[in-house]
């Protein structure tokens, strides 16, 4: 049988992720710069650890998604992967006055594209999920 992913295990995994992030935060503090110390390469290994753990959590969670819901699942993950909006906002609204206009425009277009995905992704997922009813008409 598939191993079950209980909310408690989710939390456990999430805290594992938080621990994996801790060295990164610490290194940020130590150098005092906004960019962490990249020369050691250790930082990137902690990032890779986060990636690996998140992939396993993702695979565990997705495997348990009912096949009924694969279409809404796709639009939901679509909206979630529009988290690229975070990077886009940082590029579009960057504080530095020297940022070239072309860079800002690219960032803004990226914000537009991601926000469109976020809005449409979550809305259509909810719209589809509302349709799944049992005999009595309950969702």
């Amino acid at each position: 049988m598939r191993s079950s992913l209980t909310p408690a295990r989710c939390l456990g995994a999430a805290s594992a992720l938080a621990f994996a992030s801790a060295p990164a935060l610490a290194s940020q503090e130590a150098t005092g710069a906004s960019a962490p110390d990249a020369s050691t390469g250790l930082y990137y290994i902690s990032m890779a650890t986060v990636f690996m753990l998140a992939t396993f959590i993702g695979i565990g969670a997705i495997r348990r998604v009912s096949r009924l819901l694969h279409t809404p699942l796709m639009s939901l993950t679509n909206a979630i992967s529009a988290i690229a909006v975070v990077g886009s906002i940082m590029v579009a609204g960057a504080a530095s006055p020297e940022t070239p206009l072309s860079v800002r425009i690219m960032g803004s277009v990226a914000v537009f594209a991601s926000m469109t995905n976020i809005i449409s992704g979550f809305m259509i997922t909810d719209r589809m999920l509302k349709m799944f009813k049992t005999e009595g008409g309950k969702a």
Partner: protein
Amino acid sequence: MNTTFLIASALDDLRSSNMLKYVVELAYVLAMALFIFSLHWMSDPKTARKGVFAGVWGMTAAILATWAKGEVTQHLWVLAPILLSIWPGMKLANVPITAVPQRTAVSHAFGGLAAGLVGTAEFFHWYLDANLHAEMTPFRVSALLIEIVLGYLTFTGSIIAAGKLQEVKWIPQRPWVYPGQNLVNGIAAIGAVVLAVMIVMNPTAPLAPYYFGGVIVLSLIFGPMLVLPIGGADMPTVIAILNSYAGLSAVAMGFVLDNKLLIIAGALDGSSGLILAIIMCKAMNRSFTNVLFGAFGQVQAAAPGGEQKQYKPEAPEDAAQVMAQASLVVIVPGYGMAVAQAQHKVRELYDQLKKRGVTVKFAIHPVAGRMPGHMNVLLAEAEVPYTDLVEMDEINPDMGQCDVCLVLGANDVVNPAARHEKTSPIYGMPIIDADKARTVYAVKRSKNPGFAGIDNELYFLDKTRMIFGDAKAVVGELTKALAGPGAH
């Protein structure tokens, strides 16, 4: 008035102290947890809507936290595109359910575009400012290149996929192949890798932006090259793979920007696409490489046998009589049902049969339709209770007790040749055992073979009767015939 002032001064205090940094990072951790819960709740239709709310709150937390960072001060550049995105976002959220595969492809294109643009913007931001050259570590530049390759490839590839699904005229429906295709693709891939390596070795070289432009152009070309050779029946796999790419480009962006939230959310999306693609491939008994490079559908090896096979047509009225006597009717929907938009008529037929005490189930093959779960959503839209939508593996053991199997616009997924015909391109593909039912009615638009271009053995069995016509019209007639005798 006082409150706004208080909030503003509180924010200033936060910024000047180190507090804000922690608040932002904690908001990111919260968003990560909410995204994981969001996927977790999708495991059951009962909790699934909670999952959407978790996702919305996670995203809201992430956006607000990013915006509150001291690094973002040019608010108009952020606010304007957000306001502009509301209208197209609502528009795309309210497409007809039959257009959901296209919408999904379009949103993959948007996701890819965003990743590509952010990568490009970051590169030039660093390149043009000599103070930032130190940021261009080999690792980061490599991640950035992966980000833009995946981003731009997903962008153009998804546009082609959306065009195919929308059945736009200038995009061929049949797989588009030419001799030496894989060789051309291979050379282009090597070219992109060589350019990428040159950029990583010396990202501040005067020629680096030109190499960078070369990588962008090659990635933009790659998308169509990957999707054009793939036939309509393979669309579910392609959509899932593009989904995965869009997620992985967000992961790469996370590595570039040192942002773990991006890595985690991207990894969740990437693994989702991967799992779906694997499920689709298994359901067709094909490998990844075979789907991507095999150009399914033009290999029609099996020569037509000497015997002239004959269809046995039947009128809908007669079929309705047999169905009315049945105790278990299994309906196998396929892409044909979606094309004919017959789902609401199917629901009426379902109601009529239920009224007569007939048990009706729907047998859903994993690759029926044009995207994972396509049939389920269509039937759910028509308000068929989801408890009557049954997966292939669960319905097959019951097919022996099935009195009537109604094949509605499905073809390859019920072809018994997949079990024994070793020369058939679909050999080994798991199928719904429609041929085990006592009587089979197959609704078919025309006498042409299906998408894979293969004759369907099921249609020539002694127990099979063909009903030719548009799925919607045929189902309508069946319903009318069932309602007729009972009405007076």
